[in-house]
C-alpha cells in the first residue's frame, strides 16, 4: 500500500497529464477549425486557389475563348489572374506599384490592350537598340512595374510577371499568332 504522500503525488501527475491532453486536443481542434474556416468559409483570397472574378472577366473569357484551355484549371486561373493584374494593377499588384485607385492611369490597361501584349509576347526576346541588348517579355513587364507603374521590380518567378505572360500566350493562341507575327495596320 502506498503512503498518502505518494498517492497525492500520483494524483497531481495524473491531473497534469490530463490537463496537457485537454490543451493539446483543444489546440488541434482550434487549428483544424481554422483550416476548415479558412478554406471553406472565410472567402479570403489568400486561403484558396480560386481567383477573384473582376468585372469584365466573363466577357474577356468569351471574347478570347479562354475555355479552349478548360473551364477551370491552373492555366485558366493564371490567365484570370493575369486579367486582374492588367486591368486592376493597383489592386492585384499593389506590392509592385505606387499607383492607387485614385490615379488616372493605374493599370497596365491604361497603355496596353490584351492584343498588344499578345503581339509583344511573340515579338519578345529580340534585340532592343534602345537598351542595347536582347530583352525578354518578362523583362519588359518588370520594366513596366518599375517605370510607368512607378513601383518596384518583381522577380522573374513572381505570378505578377508569369501570369501576364500566360494571358498574352492565351490571347496569342486565340489570334493564332506565330512567332514574330506583325500587327496588320488596317
Amino acid at each position: 500500500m502506498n503512503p498518502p504522500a505518494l498517492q497525492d503525488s500520483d494524483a497531481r501527475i495524473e491531473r497534469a497529464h490530463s490537463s496537457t491532453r485537454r490543451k493539446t486536443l483543444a489546440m488541434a481542434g482550434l487549428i483544424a477549425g481554422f483550416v476548415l474556416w479558412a478554406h471553406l468559409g472565410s472567402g479570403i483570397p489568400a486561403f484558396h486557389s480560386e481567383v477573384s472574378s473582376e468585372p469584365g472577366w466573363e466577357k474577356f473569357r468569351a471574347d478570347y475563348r479562354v475555355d479552349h484551355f478548360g473551364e477551370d484549371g491552373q492555366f485558366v486561373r493564371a490567365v484570370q489572374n493575369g486579367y486582374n493584374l492588367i486591368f486592376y494593377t493597383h489592386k492585384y499588384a499593389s506590392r509592385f506599384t505606387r499607383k492607387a485607385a485614385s490615379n488616372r492611369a493605374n493599370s497596365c490597361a491604361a497603355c496596353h490592350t490584351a492584343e498588344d501584349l499578345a503581339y509583344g509576347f511573340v515579338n519578345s526576346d529580340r534585340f532592343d537598340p534602345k537598351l542595347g541588348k536582347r530583352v525578354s517579355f518578362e523583362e519588359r513587364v518588370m520594366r513596366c512595374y518599375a517605370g510607368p507603374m512607378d513601383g518596384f521590380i518583381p522577380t522573374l518567378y513572381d505570378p505578377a510577371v508569369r501570369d501576364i505572360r500566360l494571358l498574352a500566350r492565351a490571347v496569342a493562341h486565340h489570334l493564332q499568332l506565330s512567332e514574330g507575327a506583325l500587327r496588320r495596320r488596317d
Partner: protein
Amino acid sequence: MSMSTGKLTKIVLLVLGSVGLYLLATHQHGQREAIRQAAVALTPACVEKLGRYGLARSEHYQSPYALQRTGASIAVQGYGEDDVRAIQRGCNIIDDTQGSLAKDPGRERWNAPRFIRGTHVSCDHCHQGIGDKQDVAGNPLKGSLSLGASWVMADMYDRFTGLLSPFEFRQMQCYINSSNGYKPNIADDVIRDVTAYSRFLSAALELKIGNHYDEQGIDEIPASATPKQGDDYVRGEAIYKKKCANCHGPQAFGLETNGRLVAPALAGPNAWNMQSRNYFYYVSTILPGFICRNMPLGEENTLSNQECRDIAFYISNLPRPAGDRQGPLVALQQQILMTVLPPLMRLTKSAGGSEVTAERVLERDQSRP
C-alpha cells in the same frame, strides 16, 4: 586606440573585399558580353539547318521551308545581329552540348558541360535532328520532341511537377535529370540561347502559339496500348541485344572510341538518373514512346508497342545514378552496382557470345552505303 585601429582595419578589409567582388563581377560581365558579340562558328549540322531555314539579319523574316511546302509564307519580325548570334549559339548547344566540335567549348557553348555529369549527354540525343527531326520529305515526325512545337505549347500545366512549366524550367529539368547534372540559372545564356533557337524553329515551321502538333513531346505508350502480355525484363533483354546493343553496347553503358562518342549511355554513370521521366519506374509511358518513334536510328516505327515497353523496362533495371529524391542509400547502392556489375557481366559473358566493340560499330557504319 588599438580597438579603433582593429575596427578600421575590418572596415577597410570589408570595403576592399566588396570592391574586389565588384571588379570581378564587372570583368565576368565584360567577358560574357564579348562572347555574345563574337562571331559564331557553327557545327556542320547547324550550318545545314539554319541555312535551310534562311536565318539571316533582316528587317523581316520569311520561312523558305513554309514557302516551299505551301507556296506561301508570312513575313514576320526579322532578326538583328545579336538575335542571329543567339540563335546560332542555341543551335550549337543542342547539336553539340559537350562542345566536342568547338575549339573553345567554355566560350562557344557557355561551358554547358558544367551543368552535366558524365561525358555522353547532348541535347540532340533526345531532341534529334537538332530538335527538329524530319523525314526525307521534310515532314516533322510524330513524338520527336520537337523544340519548336514544344515552345508554342510551353507554360502548360505539368502533371509531374504540379507547375505551370515555362520553357526555361523544362530546360532546367533536362539538365538536372536527363543529364543527371545541375540547374543553370533561368537567365543564363545557356538557357536563353536555346530558347532563342527554339523560337526561331517555331517561326521557320510557322507553328501557331498554343496549338498542339504531333511532333511535340513524346508519343507516350501506356500498357493499355499493348496486348497486355506484361512488361518482360527477359524479353526486353533479348530485343535489346538484337536491336540496340550494336550501338549502345552490351551493358548499355554507351560506346566511345578514340575519345569520340559513338552512341550515348542508356545506363551507368553517363546516363539519365532515376528522377528523369525516361526512367521507367518513375513514368512508364515516356521511354517506350521515345524508343518506338525514334529508335533504332533509320528504322524508326519498326518496333511494336510491347517491344518498346520491354526494352524500356529492361534498360531501367540496369544501374544508373540516383536522382534528387532517392536519397544517399539508393545513390550508394546504384554506385556500387555501376562499379561491380560491368566486370561481373563481362566475366559471365566471356564464355561465349560476341562482344560488341566500338571498332566493330564503326566498321559497320563505314560499310553502309
